[in-house]
């Protein structure tokens, strides 16, 4: 009853209730099985032999078994592995450069030697300008004060 090409029904396991064919007889208790189930070793106790047989060679390929099954009108569901999507690779330590806004120069940077000189020059310029400008109003003020004093007296 157990021979190469014998159609069988699986009784145990998650593929129970599905049809398969014996591809190879390994020893007294184990056979190689293929068809509507995953191609693997199987215990004879987990198989229920059916009436039909298929003409196939020993260790026939899965494609051959599928062809023979199609002739008998037994559908085989084949699950294809999912196509892998390429993910953007993350490199450790190398972060993408982010555009940084132009920052104002910090106070520390201004206090460097070169910056100090510039600061002094700019200060001197501003003080000279200031000295020239307020001369006129001071005189006016003095005049005004004199006028006020004269009026009081």
């Amino acid at each position: 009853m157990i021979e190469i090409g014998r159609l069988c029904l699986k009784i145990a396991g998650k593929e129970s209730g599905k049809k398969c064919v014996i591809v190879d007889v390994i020893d007294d208790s184990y056979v190689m099985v293929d068809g509507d189930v995953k191609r693997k070793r199987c215990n004879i106790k987990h198989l229920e032999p059916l009436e039909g047989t298929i003409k196939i060679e020993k260790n026939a390929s899965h494609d051959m078994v599928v062809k023979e099954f199609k002739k008998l009108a037994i559908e085989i569901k084949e699950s294809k592995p999912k196509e892998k999507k390429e993910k953007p690779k993350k490199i450790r330590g190398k972060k993408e450069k982010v555009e940084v806004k132009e920052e104002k120069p910090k106070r520390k940077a201004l206090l460097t030697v070169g910056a100090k000189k510039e600061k002094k020059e700019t200060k001197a310029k501003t003080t000279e300008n200031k000295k020239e400008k307020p001369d006129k109003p001071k005189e006016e003020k003095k005049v005004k004060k004199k006028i006020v004093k004269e009026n009081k007296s």
Partner: protein
Amino acid sequence: MPKRSYRSRSIRKIYIKTPGGKTVIHYERKKPKKAHCGSCGAILKGVPRERPYKLRKLAKTQRRPERPYGGVLCSKCARLLFIREARK
């Protein structure tokens, strides 16, 4: 005195030790009876005995055996059923 609704025999107490060292009583509904085979009445293996809200947290493969009629029939009865179908 606990809450009036907790003073029922259909609710079980669970003593839990908190991280602070106290023992606190938690109240839970009792577990349902074990799952049995639909044809022979034997206790099913591989079916956890928990309330539905705890079963929901489990993966589907952990809730029942992964074979046709898994979680309904025992393995012996399922095997006989397949053999009977094959010999028709």
